[in-house]
């Protein structure tokens, strides 16, 4: 039993830290440390900086331009980035569509798309959920009908994150209506500039434009942009979701939010005394800090087992998702309460702390809601 990182891992951490200190743009750091939003350029610029260092996609195989980091190295990288207020990488490209292309795409797709993901040239978004298909994703109805060497895609995707910035979208579409719902799904790569695509903002609870409805009206997609076989898309979709679940606990992000909360509580004076002197408020911080400490170790136990056994994340990561999302919500809630009556004001122009609280309600809903995660645990871990 040894909770220490190896000397190699520690020196990797030092390397990442030094890189972040030297290369992270000051305005990006400033925005993230005060809870403000990043622009498309902020994010893509950061991807370009990472790419110059060879860290555009650390976990990728070397032949695709990665470093073949193991899960522990990736964890260290993510944690250091969060601590330094560096942007998280947009997951849809590096962590989601890319592994699918590597595993199931053809050579032409790999050669065209992967370098453009690495370099930050392409912004990707995800076309999974539909108005009638949330947790029950396989019931999706967006149709792709063959027309010569193309598909014509018609339907609606929703909860699409930052699609207003995207160059490309990966979509699950229905290519067959007979048989089990899972059996008629295909995985398409669609250029967002194709005629017939309409992006309509969904303004979420805090007043921001983060997600969209995307409408497809006879959108022409060449067959060469289908990944793998027709009607086998469900397999690729599940593969993708298992990759989405690495770093699902979001430990680095939680640590950053906790540090921010503690700083606010230590400096916010109430009649001359720091808020931290309020025992009831401090106890709530103590509780969430302990929950996070436990989760940090649980997460490391999972990572350690994965890197030791060289396997993909299993259903146990559902526990990490459940706890990590609850913790990040609790931290945002406490931060809001730390402000007291000042939190009543809606502020679109600056750090909108209550907005973050409202926005983060999404974390227990997206990427498999808490209830879906519990179904997964109960079926795949407990055998119920």
């Amino acid at each position, binding site marked *: *039993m*040894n909770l220490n990182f*190896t000397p190699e891992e520690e020196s990797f951490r030092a390397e990442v830290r030094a890189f972040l200190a030297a290369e992270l743009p000051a305005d990006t750091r400033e925005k993230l440390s005060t809870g403000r939003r990043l622009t498309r350029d902020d994010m893509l610029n950061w991807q370009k900086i990472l790419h110059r260092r060879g860290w555009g996609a650390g976990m990728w195989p070397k032949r695709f331009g990665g470093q073949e980091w193991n899960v522990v190295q990736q964890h260290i990288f993510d944690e250091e980035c969060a601590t330094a207020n560096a942007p998280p990488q947009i997951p849809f490209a590096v962590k989601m569509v890319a592994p699918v292309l590597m595993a199931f795409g053809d050579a032409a797709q790999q050669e065209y798309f992967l370098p453009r993901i690495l370099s930050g040239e392409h912004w990707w978004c995800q076309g999974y959920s539909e108005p009638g298909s949330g947790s029950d994703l396989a019931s999706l109805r967006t149709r792709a009908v063959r027309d010569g060497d193309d598909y014509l895609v018609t339907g609606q995707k929703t909860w699409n994150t930052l699609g207003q910035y995207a160059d490309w979208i990966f979509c699950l579409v229905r290519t067959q209506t007979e048989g089990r719902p899972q059996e008629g799904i295909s995985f398409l790569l669609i250029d967002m500039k194709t005629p017939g695509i309409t992006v309509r903002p969904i303004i979420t609870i805090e007043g921001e434009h983060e997600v969209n409805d995307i409408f497809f009206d006879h959108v022409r997609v060449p067959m060469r942009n289908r990944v793998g076989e027709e009607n086998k898309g469900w397999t690729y979709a599940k593969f993708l979701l298992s990759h989405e679940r690495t770093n699902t606990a979001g430990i680095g992000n939680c640590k950053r939010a906790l540090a921010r909360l503690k700083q606010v509580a230590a400096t916010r004076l109430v009649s001359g005394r720091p808020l931290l002197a309020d*025992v009831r408020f401090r106890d709530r*911080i103590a509780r969430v800090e302990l929950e996070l*400490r*436990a989760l940090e170790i649980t997460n490391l*136990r999972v990572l350690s087992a994965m890197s030791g056994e060289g396997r993909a994340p299993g259903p146990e990561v559902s526990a990490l998702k459940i706890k990590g999302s609850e913790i990040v919500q609790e931290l945002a809630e406490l931060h809001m309460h730390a402000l007291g009556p000042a939190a009543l004001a809606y502020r679109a122009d600056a750090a909108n702390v209550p907005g973050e609280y409202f926005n983060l309600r999404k974390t227990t809903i997206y990427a498999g809601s808490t*209830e879906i995660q519990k179904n997964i*645990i109960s079926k795949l871990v407990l055998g119920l």
Partner: protein
Amino acid sequence: MDFRYTDEQLALQDTLQRWISRDYDFERRRSLSRSERGYSPEAWAHFADLGLLALPFPEEFGGLGGNPVDLMVVMEQVGQGLLLEPYWSTVVLCGGLIRDSGPHPLQQRVLPEIAAGRMKLALAAHEEAGRYELCHVECTATRRGAGWTLSGAKTAVLDVPSADYVVVSARTAGGATDTDGISLFLVKRDAPGLTVSEYQTQFGGRAGDLRLESVVVDDAAVVGEVGKGFAVLQRAVDGAIAALCAESVGIVTALNQATLSYLKTRKQFGVPIGTFQALQHRMADMYIAAEQIRSMAIVAAVSADSEDVAERHRAIVGAKAYIGQAARFVGQQAVQLHGGMGIVEEHMVSHYFKRLTMIDLTLGDADYHLARYSDTLAA
């Protein structure tokens, strides 16, 4: 980073598991808890043979030089088997206290005896008026010639009925709640003037309240330095709390196994009750809680012998606070999901739940330790 037990630790775990399933099943345990002694001297002798009683002591005192993670392995099984033997009191708590009390003839006198299974100890550190506060010491020790005279009362002294000696905290200077001026004494349990009112504990172990009326001990009975007993006590208690955390891991593991198996076999409305989503989700929460509990017990174990007092303190009080709350959830829900069977004395689940409840009440409950952890944030 490595979260696996070593091969030796796995072998130890295996030995204990096999011994429990062969010689210490539920019925055997029940009859032991009703016996006069309340534990098995044969088991104790067996522990000595296995080296368990020598585990955490340095080799120079007949020990095996084991670390807190080795103890974690044992304590997990103490939990799984709901063992009644005074292992924690004697070896972990009092043995650890004497081991860490500084170079002293007492170490040579006591540790080899514990290791050989010839001496058992109990800690008398709580007083009625102090609740969990170990610095609340009204019991006095006064100089008398070459020795000391102890007077006062101690409460909730676990395992005292089977103990040969009791480690007693007494005040040699200062006010009732000062941390300075507390001294520790090794007192023979049958010393003149020492009366023990014995009782059973909630889960079938043994304990007692002490009255000390002019109990005379000599200078050689002082553990550590006069007036500086609190730090020694605190350190021993930290190690003992880490062990209780590990015991909790064993119990919640056993409870989750039992509950899961019940959900799969118990039928209502013609189907196993584990097909009901309300129960599935509760079980998933119990699974998550058990994983988090294990993580915190690991933190406690690896910090238990840290020389950095502040870091050790934070890790230990944090773990006790977290596990107290999370284990209460698992225990209560295990009972709930067993339905009526969960509150039946004949069923193991009720005993596991009672033991978890006792652990929370031992050396500070979840709220008490949360407050102490919270105080470290303000510092």
